[in-house]
């Protein structure tokens, strides 16, 4: 390190890519190069020129052989395709996943309602249970079902209320499309 000087040390203001969170000079190693490029071109054209103009491209090859550089580029493209496939698969899965509201008969005229599948929509089950318990004035808890998966069990028959809350997106119960909610009934 340099010999300690007496001048003050100022923090650098660093710009990070909004797409991949890297400093823009490292976007080429991320998994969303083309998206990063369009973002940078729109938001910071001067930086775009600095990193992606012909000059810059020629310069950055530096000490690497051309062959290796090409290989690197190809790998970048492959990585991007992979990341995209992964993202689309995740989106598809999210589209297909369902929230199942089940009315379970405990004894004649007494029911519990179980809500299953909220975690697929990135809802914190514990928080959701607390909110449900509070707004419905009933007991609600996170329990493991026989398959060993977590679900919210609410006392009483409140399927319609829960569905309504999901549709309105009250509190933490956000981001579930209406079509993905189903109500079923289970009898003993």
């Amino acid at each position, binding site marked *: 390190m340099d010999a300690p000087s007496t001048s*003050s*040390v100022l923090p650098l203001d660093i710009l990070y890519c909004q797409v991949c969170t890297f400093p823009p*000079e*490292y976007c080429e190693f991320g998994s969303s190069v083309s998206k990063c490029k369009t973002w940078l071109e729109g938001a910071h054209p001067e930086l775009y020129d600095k990193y992606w103009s012909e000059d810059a491209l020629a310069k950055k090859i*530096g000490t690497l052989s051309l062959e290796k550089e090409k290989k690197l580029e190809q*790998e970048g493209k492959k990585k991007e395709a992979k990341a995209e496939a992964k993202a689309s698969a995740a989106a598809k899965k999210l589209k297909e996943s369902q929230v199942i509201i089940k009315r379970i008969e405990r004894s004649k005229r007494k029911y519990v309602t179980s809500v299953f599948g909220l975690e697929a929509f990135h809802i914190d089950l514990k928080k959701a249970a607390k909110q449900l318990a509070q707004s419905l004035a009933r007991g609600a808890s996170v329990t493991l079902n026989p398959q060993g998966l977590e679900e919210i069990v609410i006392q009483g028959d409140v399927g319609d209320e829960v569905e309504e809350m999901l549709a309105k997106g009250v509190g933490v119960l956000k981001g579930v499309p209406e079509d993905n909610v189903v109500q079923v009934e289970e009898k003993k």
Partner: protein
Amino acid sequence: MFKKFTKEDISSQTSIKSSAQRAIRASLLKQCPLLSQPSEEPDTPLLEYIWPKKENITLVKCRDHLSIYALHGEPLWFQHFDGPLFPTLRLVHKYPNLLPHVGIDRGAIKFLLSGASMMCPGLTSPGGFLPLAESLIPEGTVVAIMAEGKEHAAGVGIMKLDSEEVKKVNKGVAVESVTYLGDDLWGMKTI
């Protein structure tokens, strides 16, 4: 260290006693001389600018004896067992001179960003960078890993050999990477 790291790996978050904080401050100052230099605000050393005296820092304990020190939820330093304190990469980006630098060539960047340790040839090749013999970096020092043609650091690592030995041996691991761009600590902006 942070290749697979999620919020579930965090076991507890506590604010630390002021005596323990003093000890951490002392070891930070010992480790990074830059921290005792004046900062943007007059009459405050850099350490106090980053981490004001009155603010309580949070100790976030994680699996495998990993502890992260965070200020207002933003990780600043982390430590494994009683080892050296590593600054997070975002902090290194802000204050590049916090750590001594080593540089890797362009071919090695992609390996670094997938978490590999840095081998000697990547540092000794024309694209790499090692300090001259007079400013030797001893073994076990925390270093910022810079990359060829880039202005910002790509990772933080710890020297496995001293910098002269790296030149001499030119084989095997030179710098073990601890945190790098795009790992899970990087992805976790706040804890």
